[in-house]
């Protein structure tokens, strides 16, 4: 009986302790998400009759969304963007950087600082900076370099738009990957490597059989964070291409913005946002379940 009372008191105390985090979460995350679900079932708009008198349209926005080729294109572009920049680009280069920094090489602090530097630039600033590098045909800085060496210039954002967006986001995110993976590498006990060396393991075997398995929780955590955060990247892509040319770089966040704030259809844009939320949640749950892997 006394134990039950103690348990209940402890639970109440925990609730009080959680309250400062729960209240902002409810107000700033849960409520807007639920409101977005409500909006997605209306024809709410920023202008026109629907702005003055929005009406309930049920699942009409979702039906329209699923029959909209541009929406499916945005999901495909988002998939390429996430896999290309977060999973392949940032992770691989971040891992290589973390491994390199672990070794006692000359200039390691400078190398680390240089990789971290892009994180200091806000998304939009980074986007505009890369516009000067890539956009404008022969006016682009990279094109001028090509021309200097006698090569023909390239209109980078017109010829390889998605690749360029992936590259810029990779450039910007290597630092974050490197920090997380460096922390993961530091947690691998040095004794394990020593034992492996004594057993005659070569570097490849040590990497495949020690580093990777012991890093698995860190890698999955990184994948979760970077996948969800990359799905929501907006400022960089919007500043760089606005989703163009055509809709070749229109990731889901830009698609939602374009529908909501360029075409002014808030209800329809909210339907897109709800789908993006569901996709992010599904990926999050999948990763969290994967975190429980046996190592």
């Amino acid at each position, binding site marked *: 009986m006394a134990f039950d009372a103690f348990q209940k008191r402890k639970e109440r105390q925990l609730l009080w302790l959680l309250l400062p985090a729960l209240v902002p979460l409810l107000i700033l995350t849960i409520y807007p998400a639920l409101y977005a679900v409500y909006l997605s079932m209306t024809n709410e708009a920023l*202008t026109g009759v629907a*702005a003055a008198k929005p009406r309930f349209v049920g699942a009409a926005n979702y039906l329209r969304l699923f029959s909209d080729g541009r929406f499916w294109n945005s999901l495909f572009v988002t998939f390429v963007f996430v896999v290309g920049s977060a999973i392949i680009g940032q992770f691989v280069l971040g891992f290589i950087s973390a491994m390199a920094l672990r070794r006692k090489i000359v200039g390691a602090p400078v190398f680390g600082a240089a990789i971290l530097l892009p994180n200091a630039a806000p998304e939009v600033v980074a986007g505009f900076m890369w516009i000067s590098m890539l956009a404008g*045909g022969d006016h682009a800085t990279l094109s001028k370099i090509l021309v200097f060496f006698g090569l023909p210039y390239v209109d980078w954002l*017109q010829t390889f738009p998605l690749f360029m967006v992936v590259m810029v986001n990779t450039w910007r995110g290597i630092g974050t990957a490197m920090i997380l993976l460096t922390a993961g590498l530091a947690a691998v006990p040095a004794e394990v490597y020593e034992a492996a060396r004594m057993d005659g393991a070569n570097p490849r075997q040590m990497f495949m059989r020690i580093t990777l398995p012991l890093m698995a929780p860190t890698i999955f955590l990184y994948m979760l964070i970077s996948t969800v955060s990359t799905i929501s990247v907006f400022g960089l892509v919007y500043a*760089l291409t606005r989703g163009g040319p055509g809709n070749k770089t229109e990731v889901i966040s830009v698609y939602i913005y374009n529908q909501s704030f360029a075409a002014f259809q808030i209800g329809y844009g909210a339907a897109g946002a709800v789908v993006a939320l569901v996709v992010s949640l599904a990926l999050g749950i999948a990763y969290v379940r994967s975190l429980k892997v046996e190592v």
Partner: protein
Amino acid sequence: MNKLVAGGLAAIALSLLAGTANAESLRVALHGQAGIDAFTPTAERIEKNLGIDVEIVEYPAPDKDYMTKLLTELAAGNGPDLFSIPSAADVADMVAAGYLAPVGAELAAWPEYADFVDVAKQLAVSPDGETYVAPYILGIQQIYFRRDVLEKAGISTEQPKDWADLLARAKEIKEKTGSFGLLFPAGVSWGGGAFDEGFSHLIIGSSTPQLVTDDGKFDLTSQGVRDVFQFYKDLIDADLMPVDPLLGPEPWVIPKYEMFPSGELAATTCGSWCYIFDWGRESRNPIPDVTNVVGTWADPGQNGGEFVLANLGAPWAVNAKAANLELAKKALLEAGSVENQIETAARIGNIPASNAVQRDPRFQALTELVPIQAAANHGTYLKQATGMSVVSEGVARATEALLRKETDAAGAQQILVDHVRQTLGDEAVK
């Protein structure tokens, strides 16, 4: 200690008194430095004449971003008291949304309004018969061409007779000079310009020159609309129009500010502002002797005729939820002064709507604009209706598909119709 408390209380009381003694303030939204520079003397005059503080809020410069911010604030109920609307195609929808206060009575009672050209007054009237915007500035648009480039290549600079003649001229330019022959703004990135500065030039001369029927529906399935898209397709397929820059984030920069001044583009639609803002004295890349080097053609009709496109240039409006509606309306009339119209014309190159400017030596000094202002009343314009901003967006999407060679004229028309039907409902389209 008591002295300290008393001193603090006195300071608070004084600051409160100072606060209440402050004049009323008026928040004015503008976009672009040129517009702000033009309005600043007017703001000072409003402050002096009405005894209020005027706060000029600079919104993001591209029209689309400006509208996004403006509409979001108006929807949230915290919009500016007085603002300009970059595209007249948005006005009817803003009226339907209840954002704009009616100003017809105030304009009618304003003596200076009698001097305004009729076309400006007609353009200001909304589909419900009321006036919600002040039509101080007109956008008079035509086709601007590089006379020097054409003459050097031995190409006629005479007014093209019809669409076929215009297309033939563009082909001749391409063949003889290698330059792009003609540009009609198109695509999603150009925002409202794809409609206002592109599609409108052609539809007014087509077999179905109006998009709005008498009962307020949109006539988008017409032959005229399809023919307009076919004209775009012919230009694009023959490589007569620069396509790649139009698919970029700021599509106007390369063709208007680089290719046309360099002669790589020989003809483009534009408004009187091009003589001053785009290629004239306010330009960052001016064309020397612009009024002689750059000539104008009226928009030829599909089967003949000449049309000069007139629309409202960034009309002013009062927020229906302005804190002090009467004060905002008074400020609106002050903003329509001849001085402000001339200041705007001098800095941006738009056309003052008041004929009174013809008697003003400051306007007479703007020699590029004087004849255009005098002829403003002959302008042709599109009837407006609620949902026009959706049509404008649909045209942008349809022309984007043409730019990307993803569809033909019939497909582009279908994209437009589908977008309007999906957004406004089947009943909105005839």
